[in-house]
């Protein structure tokens, strides 16, 4: 077994009196796709926000690629190799599609000069299926296409770990299949992924392993099939009656 790329130990975060994340411990292997699932408000996005230093944790250690990243500013976490998308899509409005992705390329872990970066941006836009729309203002794209831009922006950074926060939510069945294929193609590149997702079909077909959160605690861990048939998980999602 190789050394994990990300190690999270005893992570905790409290908002007011509410424990959003409660002594959470998990690891992500190199090239692994980890599903982070659980009902709304179970602390999934909070975990992602702590990992990317959007806000600090109250306790716990996070090591990434052998380095402690707690206390680093957000931009250094990104340069260290963790890139993310946002739950509610956040394109850089007023800028072109290509420039949106270019930002990720020249400031992320890739840190490439502008001229070669532009070439790479074209490739990435082709990859996510926006090849012909590089010079359009990003505001003019549909919601789904803005999600593609965001994925390209995250990939442009050359991350070792990619955090997808409900990236597949809100897609229609055709788009969903295309999205799953796209994410699957990323797995082939040795990229580790944490997938926060409610679309169970996507979780089943993409994740190597899943952990299930309720109230900030891990209640189950294992393969998607095993986890999704687990009685406690069903109870967490559907309430006591449903199980």
């Amino acid at each position: 077994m190789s050394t994990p790329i990300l190690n999270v130990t005893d992570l905790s975060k409290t908002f007011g009196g509410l424990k959003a994340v409660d002594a959470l411990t998990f690891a992500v292997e190199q090239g692994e796709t980890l599903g982070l699932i659980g009902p709304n408000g179970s602390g999934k996005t909070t975990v992602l926000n702590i990992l990317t230093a959007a806000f600090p944790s109250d306790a716990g250690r996070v090591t990434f690629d052998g380095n402690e990243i707690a206390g680093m500013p957000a931009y250094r976490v990104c340069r260290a190799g963790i890139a993310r998308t946002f739950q509610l899509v956040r394109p850089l409005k007023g800028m072109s599609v290509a420039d949106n992705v270019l930002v990720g390329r020249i400031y992320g872990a890739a840190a490439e000069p502008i001229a070669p970066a532009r070439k790479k941006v074209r490739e990435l836009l082709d990859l996510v299926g926006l090849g012909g729309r590089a010079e359009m203002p990003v505001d003019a794209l549909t919601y789904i296409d803005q999600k593609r831009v965001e994925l390209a922006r995250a990939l442009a950074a050359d991350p070792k770990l990619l955090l997808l926060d409900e990236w597949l939510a809100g897609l229609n069945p055709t788009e969903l299949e295309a999205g799953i294929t796209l994410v699957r193609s990323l797995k082939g590149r040795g990229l580790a992924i944490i997938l926060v997702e409610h679309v169970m079909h996507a979780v089943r077909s993409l994740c190597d392993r899943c952990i299930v959160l309720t109230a900030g605690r891990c209640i189950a861990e294992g393969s998607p099939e095993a986890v999704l048939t687990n009685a406690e998980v069903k109870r967490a999602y559907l309430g006591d009656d449903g199980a």
Partner: protein
Amino acid sequence: MRAELAAILEESRKKPALLIGLGVLLALAIAMPFSVNNYVLSFFNNMLGFVVMATSWMLFSGTTKYISLATAAFFGLGAYLVAGLGEFLLYPVLIVVVGLSGFLVALVVGLSTLRLSGVYFTIFTFGLTELVRQIVTWYQVKVLGSVGSYIFIESTAADIYWRMLILAIVLYCVGFLLLRSRIGLALNAIGADETVAKHSGINVMGVKLGVFALTSVFMTLTGAIMAPRWTYIDPPIAFNVIASFEVLIMALLGGVGRLWGPIVGVVPMLLVSEYLSTRFPNYFTILLGLAFMAIVYHIPGGILGVIETYWRKRRAPRP
């Protein structure tokens, strides 16, 4: 940066007409003081001053959306440093000292407010002109015993013109390179969504602080170069809040986010204010305020914004 320069050189080699045009324009600009009277020259000095200040404002506030209302504070600081130190220092040394002072003041302001949301920065800069003015007045009363200073540097209107021209050219070169470089991209990203910017690897605080301080240097130097227009200055002349306002109007009128925006705004605005201030001196501020509000409500994208929308509509194929 070197790759950028090479790219620009390469590009300009392909456009000899543009290069020649710029050269001719420059030669005309340099020769201008020999062929006009002092009234016209003074107008041009005024214009260059506002072009530099409005462009500096645009480079930081226009891109990042952190609205600075402190242009007059930096202008006044520069003017006062020249009044206070002009007799003791060689001109080049003086300019360096003035530039550094502007840089340091901007660093202090930036370090304490730029890490917070934009509104804190705006509030701070709103009071900054009054603050610097109060400190200068206090210093003069306590230490020197009198408010107001004589300026001992003798400069003709033409001297001021050439110095301002150099400053403007330097600013345009800096601005041009800045906006094309990775920093320019970062500035626009910060203006669009600061959270995304920092999660994309941009050192948001560093970029904001650096560019704010850099552009403040140009505002401070404008004050220093323009100061010899007056032989005597007192705080109300040097720290004129209306000047901050005029700079803001010009930048918005031209169009924010584009290097050429401010210059498009400065010329019409200056002509209009020249007319209004002689025709209706008592109502000048009111008219200025109304004009500004009209811009904010009706052409938030400025003149260039209007032109761009028009072109986009014309070029877009109709369904």
